[in-house]
Protein backbone atom coordinates (compact mmCIF):
# COMPACT_ATOMS: atom_id res chain seq x y z
CA UNK A 1 0.00 0.00 0.00
CA UNK A 2 2.81 2.34 0.95
CA UNK A 3 4.65 1.38 -2.18
CA UNK A 4 1.53 2.15 -4.15
CA UNK A 5 1.01 5.63 -2.73
CA UNK A 6 4.68 6.36 -3.26
CA UNK A 7 4.48 5.53 -6.92
CA UNK A 8 1.31 7.58 -7.23
CA UNK A 9 3.16 10.47 -5.66
CA UNK A 10 6.06 10.07 -7.99
CA UNK A 11 3.78 9.89 -10.98
CA UNK A 12 1.90 13.00 -9.96
CA UNK A 13 5.06 14.98 -9.32
CA UNK A 14 6.33 13.94 -12.73
CA UNK A 15 3.04 15.06 -14.23
CA UNK A 16 3.29 18.34 -12.35
CA UNK A 17 6.82 18.92 -13.57
CA UNK A 18 5.74 18.21 -17.13
CA UNK A 19 2.86 20.64 -16.66
CA UNK A 20 5.18 23.37 -15.45
CA UNK A 21 7.57 23.02 -18.35
CA UNK A 22 4.65 23.00 -20.77
CA UNK A 23 3.27 26.16 -19.17
CA UNK A 24 6.71 27.80 -19.28
CA UNK A 25 6.99 26.81 -22.93
CA UNK A 26 3.67 28.48 -23.67
CA UNK A 27 4.67 31.63 -21.81
CA UNK A 28 7.77 32.17 -23.92
CA UNK A 29 6.43 31.25 -27.35
CA UNK A 30 2.66 31.66 -27.19
CA UNK A 31 1.35 32.99 -30.47
CA UNK A 32 -0.12 36.47 -30.75
CA UNK A 33 -3.80 36.49 -31.73
CA UNK A 34 -4.43 39.03 -34.49
CA UNK A 35 -8.06 39.73 -35.39
CA UNK A 36 -9.17 41.43 -38.59
CA UNK A 37 -12.25 41.63 -40.82
CA UNK A 38 -13.48 39.21 -43.47
CA UNK A 39 -13.62 39.63 -47.23
CA UNK A 40 -10.89 41.25 -49.29
CA UNK A 41 -9.67 43.47 -46.42
CA UNK A 42 -8.37 40.68 -44.16
CA UNK A 43 -6.90 38.88 -47.16
CA UNK A 44 -5.02 42.03 -48.20
CA UNK A 45 -3.59 42.45 -44.71
CA UNK A 46 -2.49 38.82 -44.63
CA UNK A 47 -0.74 39.14 -47.98
CA UNK A 48 0.87 42.53 -47.36
CA UNK A 49 1.44 42.70 -43.62
CA UNK A 50 0.88 39.75 -41.33
CA UNK A 51 2.56 36.82 -43.07
CA UNK A 52 5.83 38.64 -43.78
CA UNK A 53 5.97 40.48 -40.46
CA UNK A 54 5.48 37.20 -38.59
CA UNK A 55 8.19 35.51 -40.65
CA UNK A 56 10.75 38.30 -40.23
CA UNK A 57 10.17 38.90 -36.53
CA UNK A 58 9.89 35.22 -35.62
CA UNK A 59 6.67 36.00 -33.77
CA UNK A 60 4.06 33.34 -34.29
CA UNK A 61 0.56 34.66 -34.90
CA UNK A 62 -2.94 33.20 -34.91
CA UNK A 63 -5.25 34.95 -37.36
CA UNK A 64 -8.93 35.33 -36.57
CA UNK A 65 -11.76 37.14 -38.33
CA UNK A 66 -14.73 39.03 -36.95
CA UNK A 67 -12.92 41.92 -35.31
CA UNK A 68 -15.23 44.16 -33.33
CA UNK A 69 -14.74 46.69 -30.57
CA UNK A 70 -17.91 45.54 -28.79
CA UNK A 71 -16.59 41.98 -28.61
CA UNK A 72 -13.28 43.40 -27.40
CA UNK A 73 -15.04 45.31 -24.61
CA UNK A 74 -17.05 42.20 -23.75
CA UNK A 75 -13.82 40.20 -23.37
CA UNK A 76 -12.25 42.92 -21.24
CA UNK A 77 -15.28 43.40 -19.00
CA UNK A 78 -15.78 39.67 -18.48
CA UNK A 79 -12.08 39.26 -17.69
CA UNK A 80 -11.42 36.65 -20.38
CA UNK A 81 -9.33 38.38 -23.00
CA UNK A 82 -8.28 36.12 -25.90
CA UNK A 83 -7.27 38.73 -28.45
CA UNK A 84 -3.98 40.62 -28.62
CA UNK A 85 -4.38 42.91 -31.61
CA UNK A 86 -7.71 43.93 -33.09
CA UNK A 87 -8.38 45.87 -36.29
CA UNK A 88 -10.90 48.66 -35.90
CA UNK A 89 -12.09 51.89 -37.46
CA UNK A 90 -10.72 55.04 -35.89
CA UNK A 91 -14.11 55.93 -34.39
CA UNK A 92 -14.62 52.49 -32.89
CA UNK A 93 -11.24 52.62 -31.19
CA UNK A 94 -12.06 56.04 -29.72
CA UNK A 95 -15.33 54.75 -28.21
CA UNK A 96 -13.67 51.60 -26.87
CA UNK A 97 -10.83 53.64 -25.37
CA UNK A 98 -13.37 55.95 -23.68
CA UNK A 99 -14.94 52.84 -22.13
CA UNK A 100 -11.55 51.77 -20.81
CA UNK A 101 -11.34 48.65 -22.97
CA UNK A 102 -7.97 49.34 -24.59
CA UNK A 103 -4.35 49.11 -23.59
CA UNK A 104 -2.18 52.21 -24.09
CA UNK A 105 0.20 51.86 -27.03
CA UNK A 106 3.84 51.88 -26.00
CA UNK A 107 5.41 54.36 -28.42
CA UNK A 108 8.87 53.45 -27.17
CA UNK A 109 8.31 50.14 -28.92
CA UNK A 110 6.15 51.21 -31.86
CA UNK A 111 7.84 53.82 -34.02
CA UNK A 112 5.35 56.32 -35.47
CA UNK A 113 7.82 59.16 -36.02
CA UNK A 114 7.27 58.99 -39.77
CA UNK A 115 3.47 58.48 -39.69
CA UNK A 116 0.96 60.79 -41.36
CA UNK A 117 -0.10 63.20 -38.60
CA UNK A 118 -3.41 62.26 -37.00
CA UNK A 119 -3.30 58.57 -37.95
CA UNK A 120 -2.47 57.32 -34.46
CA UNK A 121 -3.77 57.96 -30.96
CA UNK A 122 -2.80 56.86 -27.45
CA UNK A 123 -4.81 53.68 -27.98
CA UNK A 124 -4.59 52.91 -31.67
CA UNK A 125 -1.93 52.76 -34.39
CA UNK A 126 -3.12 53.54 -37.91
CA UNK A 127 -2.86 50.68 -40.39
CA UNK A 128 -4.28 52.26 -43.52
CA UNK A 129 -6.08 55.31 -44.84
CA UNK A 130 -9.41 54.69 -46.57
CA UNK A 131 -12.30 56.72 -47.90
CA UNK A 132 -16.07 56.36 -47.62
CA UNK A 133 -17.12 57.06 -51.18
CA UNK A 134 -20.16 56.76 -53.40
CA UNK A 135 -19.84 54.10 -56.04
CA UNK A 136 -22.04 53.31 -58.96
CA UNK A 137 -22.72 50.82 -61.71
CA UNK A 138 -20.59 52.05 -64.61
CA UNK A 139 -22.79 50.31 -67.21
CA UNK A 140 -25.66 52.42 -66.02
CA UNK A 141 -24.13 55.83 -65.25
CA UNK A 142 -20.78 55.84 -67.09
CA UNK A 143 -17.16 55.56 -66.04
CA UNK A 144 -15.82 57.91 -63.33
CA UNK A 145 -14.85 61.26 -64.81
CA UNK A 146 -16.70 60.63 -68.10
CA UNK A 147 -19.29 63.14 -69.28
CA UNK A 148 -22.56 62.71 -67.41
CA UNK A 149 -21.13 60.44 -64.68
CA UNK A 150 -22.14 61.20 -61.08
CA UNK A 151 -19.67 63.31 -59.15
CA UNK A 152 -21.10 64.74 -55.93
CA UNK A 153 -23.43 63.65 -53.14
CA UNK A 154 -26.09 65.85 -54.76
CA UNK A 155 -25.92 63.42 -57.70
CA UNK A 156 -26.33 60.47 -55.35
CA UNK A 157 -29.56 62.05 -54.14
CA UNK A 158 -30.70 63.09 -57.64
CA UNK A 159 -32.95 60.21 -58.70
CA UNK A 160 -34.27 62.17 -61.70
CA UNK A 161 -30.88 62.68 -63.30
CA UNK A 162 -29.67 59.25 -62.16
CA UNK A 163 -32.74 57.05 -61.93
CA UNK A 164 -32.21 53.76 -60.14
CA UNK A 165 -31.81 52.15 -56.75
CA UNK A 166 -29.48 53.09 -53.90
CA UNK A 167 -27.89 51.35 -50.92
CA UNK A 168 -26.93 53.04 -47.67
CA UNK A 169 -25.46 52.03 -44.33
CA UNK A 170 -27.57 49.95 -41.91
CA UNK A 171 -27.70 50.12 -38.11
CA UNK A 172 -24.56 52.26 -37.78
CA UNK A 173 -24.22 56.01 -38.08
CA UNK A 174 -20.53 56.23 -39.08
CA UNK A 175 -20.26 58.21 -42.32
CA UNK A 176 -24.03 58.42 -42.66
CA UNK A 177 -24.97 62.03 -41.92
CA UNK A 178 -22.11 63.90 -43.61
CA UNK A 179 -23.03 62.95 -47.22
CA UNK A 180 -26.66 63.97 -46.61
CA UNK A 181 -25.64 67.47 -45.55
CA UNK A 182 -23.32 67.89 -48.52
CA UNK A 183 -26.14 66.75 -50.79
CA UNK A 184 -28.27 69.41 -49.11
CA UNK A 185 -25.77 72.08 -50.14
CA UNK A 186 -23.61 72.43 -47.02
CA UNK A 187 -19.99 73.12 -48.06
CA UNK A 188 -17.52 70.42 -47.05
CA UNK A 189 -15.70 72.52 -44.44
CA UNK A 190 -18.96 73.49 -42.72
CA UNK A 191 -20.37 69.95 -42.36
CA UNK A 192 -19.31 69.24 -38.76
CA UNK A 193 -20.20 72.78 -37.72
CA UNK A 194 -23.78 72.25 -38.93
CA UNK A 195 -23.88 68.74 -37.44
CA UNK A 196 -22.87 70.05 -34.01
CA UNK A 197 -26.46 71.02 -33.24
CA UNK A 198 -29.48 68.76 -33.02
CA UNK A 199 -31.18 70.85 -35.71
CA UNK A 200 -28.23 70.12 -38.00
CA UNK A 201 -28.47 66.39 -37.35
CA UNK A 202 -32.20 66.54 -38.01
CA UNK A 203 -31.52 68.31 -41.29
CA UNK A 204 -29.27 65.43 -42.35
CA UNK A 205 -31.82 62.82 -41.24
CA UNK A 206 -34.59 64.62 -43.17
CA UNK A 207 -32.41 64.58 -46.27
CA UNK A 208 -31.90 60.81 -45.95
CA UNK A 209 -35.67 60.40 -45.43
CA UNK A 210 -36.11 62.10 -48.80
CA UNK A 211 -33.92 59.44 -50.45
CA UNK A 212 -35.25 56.51 -48.42
CA UNK A 213 -37.92 55.33 -50.91
CA UNK A 214 -35.07 54.76 -53.37
CA UNK A 215 -32.77 52.99 -50.90
CA UNK A 216 -33.55 49.38 -51.66
CA UNK A 217 -30.90 47.84 -49.42
CA UNK A 218 -29.11 48.91 -46.26
CA UNK A 219 -25.63 47.36 -46.16
CA UNK A 220 -24.05 45.97 -43.01
CA UNK A 221 -20.45 45.21 -44.06
CA UNK A 222 -17.73 45.91 -46.60
CA UNK A 223 -18.17 42.44 -48.05
CA UNK A 224 -21.84 43.26 -48.61
CA UNK A 225 -21.02 46.56 -50.39
CA UNK A 226 -18.85 44.63 -52.84
CA UNK A 227 -21.45 41.89 -53.32
CA UNK A 228 -24.25 44.38 -54.01
CA UNK A 229 -22.23 45.96 -56.81
CA UNK A 230 -20.98 42.62 -58.21
CA UNK A 231 -24.54 41.30 -58.45
CA UNK A 232 -25.81 44.69 -59.74
CA UNK A 233 -28.42 44.46 -57.00
CA UNK A 234 -28.33 48.25 -56.60
CA UNK A 235 -27.17 51.02 -58.95
CA UNK A 236 -25.38 53.27 -56.44
CA UNK A 237 -24.12 52.78 -52.91
CA UNK A 238 -21.93 54.30 -50.26
CA UNK A 239 -18.96 52.25 -49.11
CA UNK A 240 -15.22 51.89 -48.66
CA UNK A 241 -13.15 52.60 -51.75
CA UNK A 242 -10.83 49.56 -51.56
CA UNK A 243 -13.77 47.16 -51.51
CA UNK A 244 -15.00 48.55 -54.83
CA UNK A 245 -11.57 48.34 -56.50
CA UNK A 246 -11.37 44.69 -55.49
CA UNK A 247 -14.93 44.09 -56.70
CA UNK A 248 -13.93 45.67 -60.03
CA UNK A 249 -10.93 43.31 -60.20
CA UNK A 250 -13.44 40.48 -59.83
CA UNK A 251 -15.35 41.82 -62.82
CA UNK A 252 -17.94 44.07 -61.17
CA UNK A 253 -19.00 47.07 -63.26
CA UNK A 254 -18.27 49.56 -60.52
CA UNK A 255 -16.60 52.95 -60.28
CA UNK A 256 -16.28 55.66 -57.67
CA UNK A 257 -14.85 59.12 -57.10
CA UNK A 258 -13.06 60.79 -54.20
CA UNK A 259 -15.04 64.01 -54.61
CA UNK A 260 -16.61 64.90 -51.26
CA UNK A 261 -15.68 61.47 -49.90
CA UNK A 262 -14.97 60.99 -46.19
CA UNK A 263 -11.31 60.47 -45.33
CA UNK A 264 -10.74 58.08 -42.44
CA UNK A 265 -8.28 55.49 -41.20
CA UNK A 266 -8.29 51.96 -39.75
CA UNK A 267 -5.99 51.03 -36.93
CA UNK A 268 -4.72 48.31 -34.60
CA UNK A 269 -5.89 48.38 -31.00
CA UNK A 270 -4.90 46.17 -28.08
CA UNK A 271 -7.55 44.93 -25.63
CA UNK A 272 -6.79 45.84 -22.02
CA UNK A 273 -5.10 42.84 -20.40
CA UNK A 274 -4.15 41.21 -23.72
CA UNK A 275 -2.61 37.82 -22.86
CA UNK A 276 0.54 38.37 -24.93
CA UNK A 277 0.80 42.10 -24.43
CA UNK A 278 4.57 42.50 -24.80
CA UNK A 279 5.00 40.18 -27.77
CA UNK A 280 1.95 41.74 -29.41
CA UNK A 281 3.44 45.23 -28.97
CA UNK A 282 6.59 44.01 -30.71
CA UNK A 283 4.50 42.54 -33.52
CA UNK A 284 2.62 45.83 -33.82
CA UNK A 285 5.96 47.64 -34.12
CA UNK A 286 7.03 45.21 -36.86
CA UNK A 287 3.80 45.39 -38.83
CA UNK A 288 3.81 49.23 -38.75
CA UNK A 289 7.13 49.40 -40.59
CA UNK A 290 7.19 51.04 -44.00
CA UNK A 291 8.46 47.91 -45.77
CA UNK A 292 5.23 45.99 -45.12
CA UNK A 293 2.83 48.88 -45.62
CA UNK A 294 4.51 49.50 -48.97
CA UNK A 295 2.97 46.23 -50.20
CA UNK A 296 -0.59 47.06 -49.14
CA UNK A 297 -1.62 48.97 -52.31
CA UNK A 298 -1.02 45.82 -54.38
CA UNK A 299 -3.77 44.04 -52.48
CA UNK A 300 -6.27 46.77 -51.62
CA UNK A 301 -6.32 50.45 -52.57
CA UNK A 302 -5.88 51.78 -49.05
CA UNK A 303 -3.04 54.18 -48.34
CA UNK A 304 -0.17 53.46 -45.94
CA UNK A 305 -0.10 55.49 -42.72
CA UNK A 306 3.70 55.28 -42.59
CA UNK A 307 5.04 57.93 -44.98
CA UNK A 308 8.19 55.89 -45.52
CA UNK A 309 6.08 53.36 -47.42
CA UNK A 310 5.43 55.86 -50.22
CA UNK A 311 9.20 56.25 -50.77
CA UNK A 312 10.02 52.58 -51.06
CA UNK A 313 6.91 51.06 -52.60
CA UNK A 314 7.32 49.42 -55.99
CA UNK A 315 3.67 50.00 -56.85
CA UNK A 316 3.15 51.71 -60.22
CA UNK A 317 2.31 55.42 -60.33
CA UNK A 318 -1.36 54.88 -61.29
CA UNK A 319 -1.86 52.71 -58.24
CA UNK A 320 -0.24 55.23 -55.91
CA UNK A 321 -2.35 58.03 -57.36
CA UNK A 322 -5.47 55.94 -56.75
CA UNK A 323 -4.86 55.81 -52.99
CA UNK A 324 -7.08 57.95 -50.78
CA UNK A 325 -3.98 59.27 -48.99
CA UNK A 326 -2.36 60.58 -52.19
CA UNK A 327 -1.74 64.38 -51.98
CA UNK A 328 -3.80 64.77 -55.17
CA UNK A 329 -6.84 63.15 -53.54
CA UNK A 330 -6.73 64.34 -49.94
CA UNK A 331 -7.93 67.92 -50.65
CA UNK A 332 -11.04 66.54 -52.39
CA UNK A 333 -12.22 64.87 -49.19
CA UNK A 334 -13.65 65.66 -45.78
CA UNK A 335 -11.52 64.23 -42.94
CA UNK A 336 -13.78 62.42 -40.44
CA UNK A 337 -14.00 64.23 -37.10
CA UNK A 338 -13.42 61.80 -34.22
CA UNK A 339 -14.31 64.64 -31.90
CA UNK A 340 -17.80 64.94 -33.36
CA UNK A 341 -18.38 61.20 -33.06
CA UNK A 342 -17.16 61.14 -29.47
CA UNK A 343 -19.77 63.77 -28.58
CA UNK A 344 -22.70 62.83 -30.81
CA UNK A 345 -22.56 59.17 -31.84
CA UNK A 346 -25.20 57.89 -29.39
CA UNK A 347 -27.73 60.61 -30.19
CA UNK A 348 -27.07 60.41 -33.94
CA UNK A 349 -27.49 56.63 -33.95
CA UNK A 350 -30.84 56.84 -32.14
CA UNK A 351 -32.02 59.36 -34.71
CA UNK A 352 -30.82 57.21 -37.60
CA UNK A 353 -32.38 54.01 -36.21
CA UNK A 354 -35.60 55.97 -35.80
CA UNK A 355 -35.48 56.78 -39.51
CA UNK A 356 -34.62 53.25 -40.65
CA UNK A 357 -37.49 51.72 -38.66
CA UNK A 358 -40.05 54.16 -40.09
Amino acid at each position, binding site marked *: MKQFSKSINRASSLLLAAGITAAAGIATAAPVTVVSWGGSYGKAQDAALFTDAAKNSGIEIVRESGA*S*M*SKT*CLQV*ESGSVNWDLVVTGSGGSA*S*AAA*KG*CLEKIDYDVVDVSNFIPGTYTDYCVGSDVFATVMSWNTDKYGKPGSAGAPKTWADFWDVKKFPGTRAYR*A*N*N*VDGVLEPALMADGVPMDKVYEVLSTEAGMKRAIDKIRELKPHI*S*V*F*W*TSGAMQAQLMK*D*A*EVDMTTGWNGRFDNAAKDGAKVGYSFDQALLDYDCFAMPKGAPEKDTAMKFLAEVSKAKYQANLPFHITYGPTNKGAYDITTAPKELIEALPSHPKNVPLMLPVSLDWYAKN*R*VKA*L*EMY*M*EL*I*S*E
Partner: protein
Amino acid sequence: MLLGFSIPAILVVIAIILIPIGWLFYLSFIGNDGQFTMEHYQKMVEYKSYKRVFFTTFQVSLFTTIICILIGYPLAYFLASLPPRVAGFFMLAVLLPFWTSLLVRTYAWLVLLQKKGILNEFAMNIGLWDTPLKLVHNMTGTLIGMAHIMLPFLVLPLLGSMKKIDKDLMHAAANVGASPSKAFWTVFFPLSISGLVAGSLIVFVLCLGFYVTPAVLGGGRVVMVSTQITAILENQFNWGAASALGVVLLISTLLVLYISSKIFKFDNALFGKK
Protein backbone atom coordinates in the same frame (compact mmCIF):
# COMPACT_ATOMS: atom_id res chain seq x y z
CA MET B 1 -34.85 8.57 -5.09
CA LEU B 2 -36.33 10.02 -8.26
CA LEU B 3 -35.72 13.51 -6.96
CA GLY B 4 -32.07 12.60 -6.47
CA PHE B 5 -31.78 11.80 -10.17
CA SER B 6 -33.18 15.17 -11.17
CA ILE B 7 -30.92 17.24 -8.93
CA PRO B 8 -28.20 17.59 -11.62
CA ALA B 9 -30.84 18.74 -14.10
CA ILE B 10 -32.21 21.26 -11.61
CA LEU B 11 -28.72 22.60 -10.98
CA VAL B 12 -28.12 22.94 -14.72
CA VAL B 13 -31.38 24.84 -15.13
CA ILE B 14 -30.39 27.19 -12.34
CA ALA B 15 -26.87 27.69 -13.67
CA ILE B 16 -27.60 28.18 -17.34
CA ILE B 17 -31.10 29.67 -17.30
CA LEU B 18 -32.10 31.32 -14.05
CA ILE B 19 -28.82 33.02 -13.16
CA PRO B 20 -28.18 34.52 -16.62
CA ILE B 21 -31.77 35.76 -16.87
CA GLY B 22 -31.54 37.30 -13.42
CA TRP B 23 -28.31 38.94 -14.48
CA LEU B 24 -30.00 40.22 -17.66
CA PHE B 25 -32.72 41.88 -15.54
CA TYR B 26 -30.09 43.38 -13.27
CA LEU B 27 -28.01 44.76 -16.16
CA SER B 28 -31.04 46.39 -17.74
CA PHE B 29 -31.29 48.73 -14.73
CA ILE B 30 -27.61 49.72 -14.74
CA GLY B 31 -26.46 52.86 -16.53
CA ASN B 32 -23.08 53.48 -18.14
CA ASP B 33 -21.87 55.01 -14.88
CA GLY B 34 -22.66 51.81 -12.97
CA GLN B 35 -25.58 53.34 -11.06
CA PHE B 36 -29.21 52.21 -10.92
CA THR B 37 -31.24 53.82 -13.69
CA MET B 38 -34.51 53.52 -15.60
CA GLU B 39 -33.06 55.35 -18.63
CA HIS B 40 -32.96 52.25 -20.86
CA TYR B 41 -36.68 51.69 -20.39
CA GLN B 42 -37.46 55.41 -20.69
CA LYS B 43 -35.64 55.46 -24.03
CA MET B 44 -37.93 52.71 -25.30
CA VAL B 45 -40.93 54.89 -24.59
CA GLU B 46 -39.29 58.07 -25.85
CA TYR B 47 -38.17 56.82 -29.28
CA LYS B 48 -40.76 55.45 -31.66
CA SER B 49 -38.21 53.14 -33.27
CA TYR B 50 -38.43 50.70 -30.35
CA LYS B 51 -42.20 50.34 -30.68
CA ARG B 52 -41.88 49.87 -34.42
CA VAL B 53 -39.16 47.28 -33.97
CA PHE B 54 -41.32 45.28 -31.58
CA PHE B 55 -44.26 45.60 -33.96
CA THR B 56 -42.13 44.33 -36.87
CA THR B 57 -40.85 41.44 -34.77
CA PHE B 58 -44.35 40.26 -33.85
CA GLN B 59 -45.60 40.88 -37.38
CA VAL B 60 -42.82 38.80 -38.97
CA SER B 61 -43.32 36.04 -36.40
CA LEU B 62 -47.08 35.95 -36.91
CA PHE B 63 -46.87 35.92 -40.72
CA THR B 64 -44.19 33.24 -40.67
CA THR B 65 -46.35 31.09 -38.39
CA ILE B 66 -49.39 31.51 -40.64
CA ILE B 67 -47.38 30.59 -43.76
CA CYS B 68 -45.95 27.57 -41.95
CA ILE B 69 -49.46 26.43 -40.97
CA LEU B 70 -50.81 26.86 -44.49
CA ILE B 71 -47.96 24.81 -45.97
CA GLY B 72 -47.26 22.55 -43.02
CA TYR B 73 -50.74 21.28 -42.22
CA PRO B 74 -51.46 19.77 -45.64
CA LEU B 75 -47.92 18.43 -45.73
CA ALA B 76 -48.26 16.72 -42.36
CA TYR B 77 -51.68 15.37 -43.37
CA PHE B 78 -50.15 13.93 -46.51
CA LEU B 79 -47.26 12.38 -44.58
CA ALA B 80 -49.60 10.89 -41.97
CA SER B 81 -51.72 9.23 -44.64
CA LEU B 82 -48.78 7.54 -46.40
CA PRO B 83 -47.79 3.94 -45.71
CA PRO B 84 -44.81 3.92 -43.29
CA ARG B 85 -42.12 2.96 -45.86
CA VAL B 86 -42.99 5.75 -48.31
CA ALA B 87 -43.52 8.18 -45.44
CA GLY B 88 -39.94 7.57 -44.35
CA PHE B 89 -38.66 8.88 -47.65
CA PHE B 90 -40.77 12.04 -47.49
CA MET B 91 -39.82 12.56 -43.83
CA LEU B 92 -36.24 12.65 -44.99
CA ALA B 93 -37.13 15.50 -47.34
CA VAL B 94 -38.62 17.43 -44.43
CA LEU B 95 -35.66 16.72 -42.16
CA LEU B 96 -32.91 17.25 -44.73
CA PRO B 97 -32.84 21.05 -44.34
CA PHE B 98 -32.12 20.49 -40.64
CA TRP B 99 -28.75 19.08 -41.57
CA THR B 100 -27.72 22.11 -43.62
CA SER B 101 -26.40 25.21 -41.90
CA LEU B 102 -28.95 27.93 -41.34
CA LEU B 103 -26.55 30.47 -42.77
CA VAL B 104 -26.07 28.47 -45.96
CA ARG B 105 -29.81 28.12 -46.47
CA THR B 106 -30.31 31.84 -45.88
CA TYR B 107 -27.65 32.86 -48.39
CA ALA B 108 -29.02 30.30 -50.84
CA TRP B 109 -32.33 32.16 -50.77
CA LEU B 110 -30.47 35.43 -51.36
CA VAL B 111 -28.83 33.97 -54.47
CA LEU B 112 -32.16 32.62 -55.71
CA LEU B 113 -34.28 35.68 -55.08
CA GLN B 114 -32.11 38.72 -55.80
CA LYS B 115 -32.60 41.08 -58.74
CA LYS B 116 -30.27 39.16 -61.06
CA GLY B 117 -30.93 35.93 -59.18
CA ILE B 118 -31.84 32.58 -60.66
CA LEU B 119 -35.60 32.96 -60.19
CA ASN B 120 -35.86 36.43 -61.77
CA GLU B 121 -33.57 35.51 -64.68
CA PHE B 122 -35.50 32.32 -65.37
CA ALA B 123 -38.91 33.99 -65.18
CA MET B 124 -37.78 36.81 -67.47
CA ASN B 125 -36.26 34.37 -69.96
CA ILE B 126 -39.48 32.45 -70.36
CA GLY B 127 -41.46 35.69 -70.34
CA LEU B 128 -43.35 35.40 -67.04
CA TRP B 129 -42.48 39.00 -66.17
CA ASP B 130 -40.43 41.76 -67.87
CA THR B 131 -38.75 43.67 -65.06
CA PRO B 132 -37.13 41.90 -62.11
CA LEU B 133 -39.50 41.43 -59.17
CA LYS B 134 -38.33 42.66 -55.80
CA LEU B 135 -38.31 39.37 -53.94
CA VAL B 136 -35.59 39.95 -51.40
CA HIS B 137 -34.13 42.73 -49.23
CA ASN B 138 -37.65 43.28 -47.96
CA MET B 139 -40.47 41.62 -46.02
CA THR B 140 -41.23 39.14 -48.83
CA GLY B 141 -37.74 37.67 -48.84
CA THR B 142 -37.63 37.56 -45.06
CA LEU B 143 -40.89 35.62 -44.87
CA ILE B 144 -39.88 33.17 -47.61
CA GLY B 145 -36.60 32.40 -45.86
CA MET B 146 -38.06 32.19 -42.37
CA ALA B 147 -40.98 29.98 -43.41
CA HIS B 148 -38.57 27.58 -45.11
CA ILE B 149 -36.36 27.37 -42.02
CA MET B 150 -39.25 27.07 -39.54
CA LEU B 151 -41.38 24.54 -41.43
CA PRO B 152 -39.92 21.38 -39.82
CA PHE B 153 -40.59 22.80 -36.35
CA LEU B 154 -44.28 22.89 -37.21
CA VAL B 155 -44.51 19.66 -39.19
CA LEU B 156 -42.83 17.36 -36.66
CA PRO B 157 -45.12 17.91 -33.62
CA LEU B 158 -48.15 18.10 -35.91
CA LEU B 159 -47.29 14.81 -37.59
CA GLY B 160 -46.84 13.22 -34.18
CA SER B 161 -50.34 14.16 -33.09
CA MET B 162 -51.87 13.17 -36.45
CA LYS B 163 -50.32 9.73 -36.31
CA LYS B 164 -51.98 9.11 -32.97
CA ILE B 165 -55.45 9.72 -34.41
CA ASP B 166 -57.28 6.45 -34.83
CA LYS B 167 -58.18 6.00 -38.53
CA ASP B 168 -61.28 4.03 -37.56
CA LEU B 169 -62.79 7.24 -36.22
CA MET B 170 -62.88 8.61 -39.77
CA HIS B 171 -64.42 5.38 -41.04
CA ALA B 172 -67.00 5.55 -38.26
CA ALA B 173 -67.88 9.10 -39.27
CA ALA B 174 -68.31 7.96 -42.86
CA ASN B 175 -70.50 5.05 -41.73
CA VAL B 176 -72.93 7.38 -40.02
CA GLY B 177 -73.16 9.47 -43.19
CA ALA B 178 -70.57 12.24 -42.86
CA SER B 179 -69.06 13.50 -46.11
CA PRO B 180 -65.22 13.30 -46.23
CA SER B 181 -64.90 17.05 -45.59
CA LYS B 182 -67.44 16.93 -42.76
CA ALA B 183 -65.59 14.00 -41.21
CA PHE B 184 -62.31 15.88 -41.51
CA TRP B 185 -63.55 19.10 -39.86
CA THR B 186 -65.61 17.48 -37.11
CA VAL B 187 -63.38 14.53 -36.25
CA PHE B 188 -59.82 14.73 -37.60
CA PHE B 189 -59.09 18.46 -37.33
CA PRO B 190 -60.16 18.89 -33.67
CA LEU B 191 -58.01 15.89 -32.72
CA SER B 192 -54.97 17.36 -34.48
CA ILE B 193 -55.28 20.77 -32.84
CA SER B 194 -52.97 19.98 -29.92
CA GLY B 195 -50.09 19.22 -32.28
CA LEU B 196 -50.92 22.23 -34.43
CA VAL B 197 -50.90 24.59 -31.44
CA ALA B 198 -47.66 23.13 -30.10
CA GLY B 199 -45.93 23.43 -33.49
CA SER B 200 -47.24 26.94 -34.12
CA LEU B 201 -46.06 28.15 -30.73
CA ILE B 202 -42.59 26.71 -31.26
CA VAL B 203 -42.38 28.46 -34.62
CA PHE B 204 -43.75 31.75 -33.28
CA VAL B 205 -41.46 31.88 -30.27
CA LEU B 206 -38.36 30.91 -32.28
CA CYS B 207 -39.18 33.65 -34.80
CA LEU B 208 -39.33 36.32 -32.09
CA GLY B 209 -35.63 36.00 -31.38
CA PHE B 210 -34.46 35.29 -34.93
CA TYR B 211 -31.44 37.21 -36.18
CA VAL B 212 -29.57 35.85 -39.20
CA THR B 213 -32.35 35.35 -41.72
CA PRO B 214 -34.11 38.74 -41.31
CA ALA B 215 -30.72 40.47 -41.22
CA VAL B 216 -29.60 38.91 -44.51
CA LEU B 217 -32.88 38.68 -46.43
CA GLY B 218 -34.50 41.83 -45.00
CA GLY B 219 -31.86 44.07 -46.58
CA GLY B 220 -31.77 46.27 -43.49
CA ARG B 221 -35.40 47.24 -43.99
CA VAL B 222 -36.88 44.59 -41.70
CA VAL B 223 -35.53 45.65 -38.32
CA MET B 224 -36.26 43.05 -35.64
CA VAL B 225 -35.50 43.30 -31.92
CA SER B 226 -32.38 41.16 -32.39
CA THR B 227 -31.10 43.58 -35.05
CA GLN B 228 -31.66 46.53 -32.73
CA ILE B 229 -29.80 44.74 -29.92
CA THR B 230 -26.84 44.14 -32.23
CA ALA B 231 -26.82 47.77 -33.36
CA ILE B 232 -26.77 49.00 -29.76
CA LEU B 233 -23.99 46.60 -28.79
CA GLU B 234 -21.86 47.25 -31.87
CA ASN B 235 -22.10 51.03 -31.72
CA GLN B 236 -22.53 51.96 -28.10
CA PHE B 237 -21.16 48.94 -26.17
CA ASN B 238 -24.20 49.58 -24.01
CA TRP B 239 -25.01 46.28 -22.28
CA GLY B 240 -27.73 47.94 -20.18
CA ALA B 241 -29.77 49.16 -23.14
CA ALA B 242 -29.34 45.83 -24.95
CA SER B 243 -30.39 43.91 -21.80
CA ALA B 244 -33.50 46.06 -21.41
CA LEU B 245 -34.55 45.13 -24.96
CA GLY B 246 -33.93 41.47 -24.13
CA VAL B 247 -36.03 41.74 -20.99
CA VAL B 248 -38.97 43.31 -22.83
CA LEU B 249 -38.77 40.65 -25.54
CA LEU B 250 -38.67 37.89 -22.92
CA ILE B 251 -41.65 39.26 -21.02
CA SER B 252 -43.71 39.79 -24.15
CA THR B 253 -42.92 36.24 -25.25
CA LEU B 254 -44.09 34.88 -21.90
CA LEU B 255 -47.21 37.01 -22.23
CA VAL B 256 -47.96 35.51 -25.66
CA LEU B 257 -47.48 32.00 -24.25
CA TYR B 258 -49.73 32.75 -21.30
CA ILE B 259 -52.54 34.25 -23.37
CA SER B 260 -52.48 31.47 -25.97
CA SER B 261 -52.41 28.86 -23.21
CA LYS B 262 -55.64 30.38 -21.85
CA ILE B 263 -57.25 30.44 -25.28
CA PHE B 264 -56.20 26.95 -26.30
CA LYS B 265 -56.56 25.50 -22.81
CA PHE B 266 -53.14 23.98 -22.36
CA ASP B 267 -52.22 26.14 -19.40
CA ASN B 268 -51.86 23.10 -17.17
CA ALA B 269 -49.10 21.84 -19.42
CA LEU B 270 -47.20 25.13 -19.39
CA PHE B 271 -47.92 26.82 -16.14
CA GLY B 272 -49.34 24.06 -13.90
CA LYS B 273 -52.92 23.96 -12.64
CA LYS B 274 -54.26 23.84 -9.12
